[in-house]
């Protein structure tokens, strides 16, 4: 699975979204599920899935699916 597909799965499972939900264009607080509580759960799930650790700035700057994907790419996650 590509990084994007895996990240997509993490988003859908963490926030319990429908399987065909358009997460690629999702931004923080666009939907009720991605509030601050959802963000915390999401960050933890992404760290587990990709075996990475985000620093403070990354956590609070992770404002969209695309930003999260870019961060993972920059960190060399596969």
């Amino acid at each position, binding site marked *: 699975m590509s990084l994007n597909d895996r990240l997509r799965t993490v988003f859908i499972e*963490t926030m319990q979204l429908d399987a065909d939900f358009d997460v690629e264009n999702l931004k923080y607080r666009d939907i*009720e599920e991605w*509030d*601050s*509580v*959802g963000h*915390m759960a999401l960050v933890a799930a992404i760290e587990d899935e990709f075996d990475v650790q985000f620093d*403070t700035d990354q*956590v*609070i700057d992770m404002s969209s699916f695309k930003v999260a994907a870019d961060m993972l790419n920059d960190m060399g996650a596969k």
Partner: protein
Amino acid sequence: MNSLVHSQARLIDALDGSVLAGAELSARVTAAADELSALPDGVLFARMSQDVPSVLRYLGAFESGRAIAMIDPALDADVLAGLVARFRPAAVLGAEGDAPEGYRLTGTSWERISPEGVKPHPDLAVLLPTSGSTGNPKLVRLSRSAVLHNAESIARVLGIDADEVTATNLPLHYSYGLSVLNSHLLRGATVVVEANGVMARPFWTTVETYRVTSLPGVPYHYEMLRRLRFDPAKYPSLRTLTQAGGKLRVELVTEFNDKMRAVGGRMFVMYGQTEAAPRMSTVPAERLADKLGSAGPALPGGSFSIRAEDGSEITTPGVDGEVVYRGPNVMMGYAENEAELAGGDEVGGVLVTGDLGHLDEDGYLYITGRLKRIGKVFGNRVNLDDLEQVVKGYGPAAAVPAGDKVVVWLQDADAEACKAAARTLSERLHLHVTGFDVRQAGDFPLLPSGKIDYRSLEARV
């Protein structure tokens, strides 16, 4: 009694940096009050978003003696409709969508068409719904003097003065969030109205830009701050943390207390209930390390006692019983309908908390459990029996508290049904789905009486 808004108080709108202070702030509050005075008799419902207009509407109502109920803007439309039908508010401020029957849409308000309404009791100032979007929330009736007394006591124990700056990172329809606003305005401090919360960059920009000095949080905020690897050295203005809204893990109390002390800051652990407007106790920052796990001594003007099952008072330190609080900040009572808004004080300053706990030799309270079946989901009190009702479509259910979440055991459900049940709970209660851990249980353990053995389920969590 004096005003809630001190002449030096300032409101800053984080959206555009505009500042309301002094004569301008009081003129805006008066203007908001004037608008409300044209409304017919009855309570006001205010959908409290984290914005300046919501704050001004609240202050306008409070300062002009108009009873106002603080409503979660995310409350389900049908729950809101039920509240409107039961309480017949004079208006719903900050409303969205078409007005219900008997109301007309005027600007952003639904105004009741009929001028006939029950006049709320003259002492009544603020109403807050008991938690639980399930069933029919009651409203907690708080008098003006209870709100002012509590704001004053909080300001005193936390040492809030005109140099303090805080932000609205807690919802204003939540009793803790409202008390942060009140206690700062009362002492002429600055409140930055901000809607983003600690997990987003704009909040921390606000902390830096306006030199925020204190940050309140419920336990899950501290879990977030830990995940963010919060370092107070990065925010030199931020030197006070306060915590309430449920018991914070002792390891986190220690961790954050140590972090704050290392930079010359302070941390306060507090205890309260909406029914006490809401604060009942605070651990003085300098005692936190040697009173770990305590909720602190009662606020100035208040007192705790511990009641045994037979109703007698337990005076021996260390012995558990039901926590009873007495103080000038205790509610007048509940209201379930419009007629009850006219009622006076029904409890005489005595709050039977439903919490189990004990006092130590120094009068410090330790909470050890709940008498009623209540859990907390991200700081929101939920009735566990209500949760079981919400998911009864999935078969027999048993809900137990699990820290900042609840675990709901389903006897006959598969994994798919557990996920669906969690979604149902999240939608009905408007709380994040990760707060509901729904699991397959198999047959429930039973007590000899045939009732579900909740203790053994709690032990499985």
